[in-house]
C-alpha cells in the first residue's frame, strides 16, 4: 500500500511539474553571463566566482519548494537525493558546504534582490523587475 502511494505520488509530482519553467536569477546590477555548465559549477561548489571575476553566492530552494526538483533535474541533471548524496560526501569530509536554502520563491527573490553576489532560481512565473533572469530551463 505504502509502496503504491509513493509511486503514485512520484508520478503525480512528475506530471505536475513537467510544464513549469525554472528561471535562474541574479541581482539586476550583475552583468555576468551564465550558461548551464557555469550554473552547475556554482551550485555544486566547484566554482565560487562569476565569469567576470566577481564572487558568487549560490542560493538554493528548500526541498519543499516546487522549483527545487525541477532545478536539480533540468539544470544539474540529478535527482534531489543524488544531490544530497553528493553534498553529504563533501560536508562530512570538510571539502565543501552546500548553498544556503530558502523556503519559497518570494524569499529567494528578496534575497537575490538584496545581494549583488547572489545567484538563485525561482518558478519563471514568479519573476518580476526586482531580479534579473540569466537563463531559463
Amino acid at each position: 500500500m505504502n509502496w503504491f502511494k509513493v509511486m503514485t505520488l512520484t508520478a503525480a509530482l512528475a506530471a505536475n511539474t513537467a510544464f513549469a519553467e525554472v528561471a535562474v536569477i541574479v541581482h539586476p546590477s550583475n552583468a555576468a553571463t551564465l550558461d548551464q555548465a557555469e550554473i552547475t559549477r556554482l551550485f555544486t561548489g566547484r566554482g565560487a566566482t562569476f565569469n567576470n571575476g566577481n564572487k558568487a553566492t549560490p542560493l538554493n530552494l528548500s526541498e519543499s519548494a516546487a522549483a527545487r526538483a525541477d532545478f536539480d533535474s533540468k539544470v544539474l541533471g540529478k535527482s534531489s537525493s543524488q544531490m544530497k548524496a553528493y553534498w553529504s560526501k563533501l560536508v562530512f569530509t570538510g571539502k565543501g558546504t552546500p548553498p544556503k536554502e530558502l523556503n519559497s520563491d518570494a524569499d529567494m527573490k528578496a534575497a537575490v534582490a538584496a545581494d549583488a553576489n547572489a545567484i538563485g532560481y525561482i518558478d519563471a512565473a514568479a519573476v518580476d523587475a526586482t531580479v534579473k533572469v540569466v537563463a531559463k530551463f
Partner: protein
Amino acid sequence: MKKLLLATVVAAICSYPVQAEVDISGFASVMGGKLTSGSGVALFGLEPTFLANYPTVGVYEEDWTFKPDSKFGLQMTAELTEGLTATAQLVGRGADDFDAGFEWAYLSYTLNEHWTLQAGKKRLPLYYYSDFFDVSYAYLWIRPPADNYTWQIFNYTGVNAQFNYQLSDWSLSGNIYTGREDDAENKLLSEFFGTEPVREIWKDIVGGVLSLNRDWLDLRLTYMTYQNERYSGGQRVFWDGEDTRRGNFAGLSVNIDYNNWLLLSEVNRLALDGDDYDTYLLSAGYRIQQFTPYVSYADFDSDGEKHNTTSVGVRWDFHNSAAFKFQFDDVNDKGIGSNQVAGDSKAITMGVDLVF
C-alpha cells in the same frame, strides 16, 4: 598533542555560540544482517564469520546482529571569523558498542578561492571511500567492499592543504597531507588478528590526492608513504631486524555516472617492506527512478592473504534524505592455513542510511 588539539577545536566550537553560527548536521545507518552460510576457520577455532568491516572488526555471525554496520555521526561546524572554521565530528559505531568518540576535530582556514588549510584530526584519505566511509548514504552499497578497506589505521593527526581549480571543462581538486597516528590499542590487530594488545603507529605520513572531474567522469589518484612502528604486548616488533618498516600506497579510481549507469572501480597497491598487497573493486549499477540495483566484485591479493567478495544489492531512495539498502555478499577466502582471514561466508544485510 592530539588531546590538546581536540580540546582546542571542541572549546572553539562551544565558546562561540553567541557570535558564530554553529551548524549541526549528521548521518546514521541502522543495518541488520546475518550469515546464510559460512565455513569459519577451524585452525583458529573461528566460528562461521563474515568480516564486513576490518578496521572496526564488524562481524556478522549466524544470528541476526545490528552492530557491524550501524552507526551515527554528528558534525558541528562553527565559523569563527571570516574564513576560519572549527569542525568536530562525533561518531558512534555499533561495532564499538556505540561508544562515541571524536573521529574528526580540525580547524580550517580558507586562504583563497583555491586553497584551504586544515589542522587537526581527520580520516586518512587513502582509498576513494576512506574519508566518507561512515557516511553510507553518500555511496551505493551498504559498505565499501571489505576486501579493499582492510587497513588497521584510518585516522591521522596532522595538517592538510586542499585545493580546487577549474581547467576548461575539468574540475581539479585534491589535497596534500602529512601527520601521524598512534593507536594505543589497535582493534583489528589486537582483537582479530592477535590475542595481545597491539600499539600500532604510522608516522611520517606524507600523502596526496588528485581528483579530476568532468561531467559524468570522475578520476582519482592517491599516494601515501609512511613508517610503521609496532608494539605487541608492550614489546617492540622487529621486521627483519629493523624496528620500523616503510609502506608506500598508490591507487587509481575511475567512476562513471552516465545515463543512469553507474560504473565504479578502484585499483590499489600497498608495498610494505618489499611485499605487495593488491586490491581492486568493480561495481556496476543502474538507476531506475528511486531504485538502483547493483553488482560488485572486490579482491585482495598478497603473497599469503587472498580473498574476494561478490555482492548483489539494491539501493532504494524512498525518501529525500534516506535510503533503504539490501545486499547479499559471498566471500571467498583463498588463504592457505594461517593466511586465512575468516573463511568463506555468505551473508545478507539490510537497513536504512540517512543524513540530516
